């Protein structure tokens, strides 16, 4: 027997359908974008993310940590930070993190522990009205900061639970080696 909740979920799934099918309709802009993205990435053979310090790896001179990022996190940053000076300002904050002995407790950045990852909050200055969140994890043994995602907070208050779930999922997948390393 269907209850109100089931009806609500069904209604939701149906509203999602049009968007999903649009991605699959040949000739639609979304379909083209998805195809181009896949074709670009298909040239790389999937392999596990290496664990441990490798030759040529490790922090660069002047830095205590090296920085890696998920391509999905970069896409988010590019979508939110539409001007190059905003993007560069955020890269500056990441460079700053990589100079700290403990990037989870930097004296110069607003960083908080959030579920099983860390959240850097930044706003104002070159960002103007953008209230940005940068999510990352720290791999102590590899001396790596891994950027998992970016989020533009629309109103004051807590980060939406769905964002926390999304970033936690990415962290789990990263730790498990589900994401192939590129370049």
């Amino acid at each position: 027997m269907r209850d109100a909740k089931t009806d609500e979920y069904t209604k939701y799934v149906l509203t999602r359908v049009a968007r999903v099918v649009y991605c699959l309709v040949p000739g639609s802009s979304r379909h083209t974008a998805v195809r181009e993205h896949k074709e670009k990435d298909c040239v790389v053979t999937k392999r596990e993310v290496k664990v441990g310090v490798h030759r040529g790896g490790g922090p660069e001179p002047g830095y205590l940590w090296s920085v890696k990022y998920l391509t999905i996190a970069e896409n988010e940053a590019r979508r939110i930070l539409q001007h190059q000076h905003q993007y560069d300002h955020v890269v500056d904050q990441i460079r700053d993190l990589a100079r700290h002995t403990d990037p989870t407790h930097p004296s110069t950045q607003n960083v908080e522990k959030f579920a099983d990852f860390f959240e850097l909050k930044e706003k104002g200055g070159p960002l103007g009205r953008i209230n940005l969140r940068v999510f990352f994890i720290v791999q102590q043994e590899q001396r790596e900061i891994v950027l998992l995602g970016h989020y533009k907070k629309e109103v004051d208050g807590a980060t939406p639970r769905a964002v926390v779930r999304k970033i936690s999922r990415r962290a789990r997948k990263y730790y498990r080696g589900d994401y192939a390393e590129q370049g």
Partner: protein
Amino acid sequence: MSADALKKSLSQLDVEQQRMMLALGILLDRIQKLSAEDVDELFGLVREYCEAESEEDRVAADEAILEILEQEPVFVRRQPLKTEGDITRVPKLENWLSWVSKRIHDLRSAAGLTQSELEERTGLPQSHISRLETGKHSPSRYTLEKIAAALGVDVSEFDPAAE
């Protein structure tokens, strides 16, 4: 139902309804291909969507759901970290750095503080303050708030974007 019967049933639907049927099939197919972990996550997110209290929460759940359904390939890349002398910045960021670095220097000097004294008051390393005053680093809002508090001024003195 035979293929002919199915074809006949489908032909009675209008284009939008046919698309909807196709989409439902694709959606089911995609959900069946997901790992058990992702299916749990998907339904958890659907719950988040239905129980969302604000538009922001709803949009966030929507995007997270799409990420699972689309299963786009994700890769890990290394971010090159240049040394400060090798960093080239766009003019707009250069202008900001030039303005804010001078502002920090001027307001610190006006307060009669050395960089070391400002370090004591803010907890920011003196080397960092020096890099800010020479325009080598774009200061975070957190840093500017600390400096403003130490100098007894409003943060808007350093950041016109501050409310």
